[in-house]
């Protein structure tokens, strides 16, 4: 029993965080928004870091890592508000293809020459797929209308929901950080607005929500990685906790920014809109709530103090 990431896992996540912080700041999001929102150079950078092959087995030219590492990095993608379809391709499609024994495309995915957006019936549209375009409130999210056939596979849904939850953690962290930094520099009534308890307490409540959503997501990643029979419950719990934390943080963050928060000029809106989008993707709040409800009240999940990890 050890509920802790290894030093290697933390170092990996940190290196991705540093890379994205250095190459994918808000100015990049603004450039993409203005000039067409995919940039081959960004994708190539992710490929060069090995991230497209993170979950591809070593025989197919990947790093052969698991869902825990993928979820950690998905959180970093959320933190950077990354729009390239890395998470859908490398952390959702690849693990799903591997689980089905479909290895044909894996080498191309790892090499970065193939991007995959798997349709699932729960998603009425997909990002970065082929089809009739739709406009998302998220200016960096390229939606297309749902293809004629979508999968009904639960494992695919669980992978998508888990990785959405992980991204929502990173988005929430980033929004909290932006709000805090703004509250330190914006002065009113002769002091930084962040010195007022009215803001402090709202921001602290966000910190509590985000902090307690994190271990739920990591626990779900481990359960799905282990193939635990309770994994769907834990994934739904994770999606709920991460969604609620991210939406709460988004609302507080815009409030802390005041009128600036209601403009397109402040960076916050990119993160907030991604959070809105992911909150409804791969099973919305009601869907995941009902799965938790059914397991907890329906009796399939043993509950009580001795069942923390049952």
């Amino acid at each position, binding site marked *: 029993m*050890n*509920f802790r990431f290894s030093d290697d896992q933390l170092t990996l996540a940190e290196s991705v965080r540093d890379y994205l912080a250095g190459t994918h700041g808000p100015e990049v999001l603004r450039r993409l928004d203005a000039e067409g929102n995919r940039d081959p150079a960004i994708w190539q950078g992710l490929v060069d870091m090995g991230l497209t092959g993170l979950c591809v087995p070593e025989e197919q030219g990947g790093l052969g890592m698991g869902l825990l590492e993928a979820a950690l990095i998905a959180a970093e993608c959320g933190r950077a508000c990354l729009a390239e379809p890395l998470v859908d391709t490398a952390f959702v499609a690849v693990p799903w293809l591997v689980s089905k024994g479909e290895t044909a495309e894996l080498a191309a995915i790892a090499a970065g020459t193939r991007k995959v957006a798997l349709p699932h019936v729960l998603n009425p549209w997909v990002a970065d797929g082929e089809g009739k375009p739709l406009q998302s409130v998220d200016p960096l999210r390229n939606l297309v209308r749902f293809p004629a056939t979508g999968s009904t596979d639960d494992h695919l849904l669980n992978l998508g929901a888990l990785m959405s939850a992980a991204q929502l953690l990173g988005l929430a962290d980033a929004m909290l950080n932006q709000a805090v930094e703004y509250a330190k520099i914006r002065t009113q009534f002769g002091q930084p607005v962040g010195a007022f308890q009215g803001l402090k307490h709202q921001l602290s409540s966000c*910190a509590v929500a985000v902090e307690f959503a994190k*271990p739920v997501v990591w626990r779900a990643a481990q359960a799905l990685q282990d193939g635990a029979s309770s994994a769907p419950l834990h994934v739904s*719990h994770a999606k709920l906790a991460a969604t609620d934390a991210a939406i709460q943080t988004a609302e507080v963050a815009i409030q802390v920014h005041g009128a600036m928060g209601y403009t397109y000029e402040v960076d916050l809106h990119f993160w907030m809109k991604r959070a809105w989008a992911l909150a409804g993707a791969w099973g919305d709040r009601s869907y995941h709530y009902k799965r938790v409800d059914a397991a907890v009240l329906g009796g399939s999940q043993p509950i009580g*103090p001795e069942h*923390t*990890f049952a």
Partner: protein
Amino acid sequence: MDLAYTPEQQAFRAEVRAWMEAHVPKEPLVTLECKEGFDHHVAWERTLASGNWGMVTWPEQFGGRGLDLIQWLIFEEEYFRAGGPNRANQNGIFLLGPTIMEFGTEEQKARFLPPMARGEVIWAQAWSEPGAGSDMAAIQSKAVRDGDHYVITGQKTWSSRAAFADWGFGIFRTDPESKRHKGLTFILFDLNSPGITRRPIRQLHGDTGFAELFFDEVRVPVENCLAGEGEGWNVAMATAGFERGLMLRSPGRFQATAKRLVELYRAHEAEASPAAREAVVQAWGAAQAYAYNTYAVASKIMAGGKIGAEASLNKIFWSELDRAMHRTAMQLLGAHAELKRFGNGQINQWLEGYIFSLSGPIYAGSNEVQRNIIAERLLGLPRVGAG
């Protein structure tokens, strides 16, 4: 990350479960907040000690078992699974004990810890004063050095367990010229010392769970001072960290409440609102989240990490979760919620629990203070009033 228990951990769980099933009282004890209930709870502390379960993480020489934090969590899970009573000596074992372990001399450890683990000396805390609640640095009670004694004069209030406990601990102003956080000293004292008057205070539920303490030139030997004169604030902050942090409220307590809430919901499903249903499901989720987080913190500490201001996140989370769960139960109980005993004579534990849960966001540093700590120390926002 490895979320499976080792065979040794599973065997330990089985050992705790067997002992608890054989020893935990079948009927819930009368509340700890009245004399009769207090005596029952002290008797239970001694039963626990007879099985050497008083404080499992302490070193064996001090009455513990030298177990690690994962074993502690397993113990707590089984304790609450069995419906184990609240710990009469929680101020001692969860707050003062770890403080003595960190700051005490070897002599103090040998003197105070074993009787604490055995439930022979029950401890009360004496932090607050009438003018120093959330603002603890405003305390005025004085301890004046006189040879090898301190002479204490002043007043403490809202002292948990002080109506019935044996000993108390708190901080006192030893430097009369000092202000705020300086010049304070952490002192342990026998509540039966000449010059101490206890005035039990009726709490919200009508029982006398805490007390006001009046000190009229109470003589306390200097060897009862912890960590040296003038160090009181730092020591008290460490104690408060233990209180808010890992030990005081282990997850098993809230997981057990969530489970009882699910059972209560099932009994009231026909008339319950969808909102109440969702609150029940959320309670399970939040109690689990708290448990995962505690395992994560325990794993971090076992790997050499520390818990600092993060303890404030914990304190807010468990205290507001506890209140929410009991509020939901009161809603589910409907007209029955106000009854102190149900028609079948059973104590309405949800009502008692709801009343107690209202103290959670207040004690151990109000949640407003905790939110300031998070904002200033974790998020880095400017201090209140800073320009």
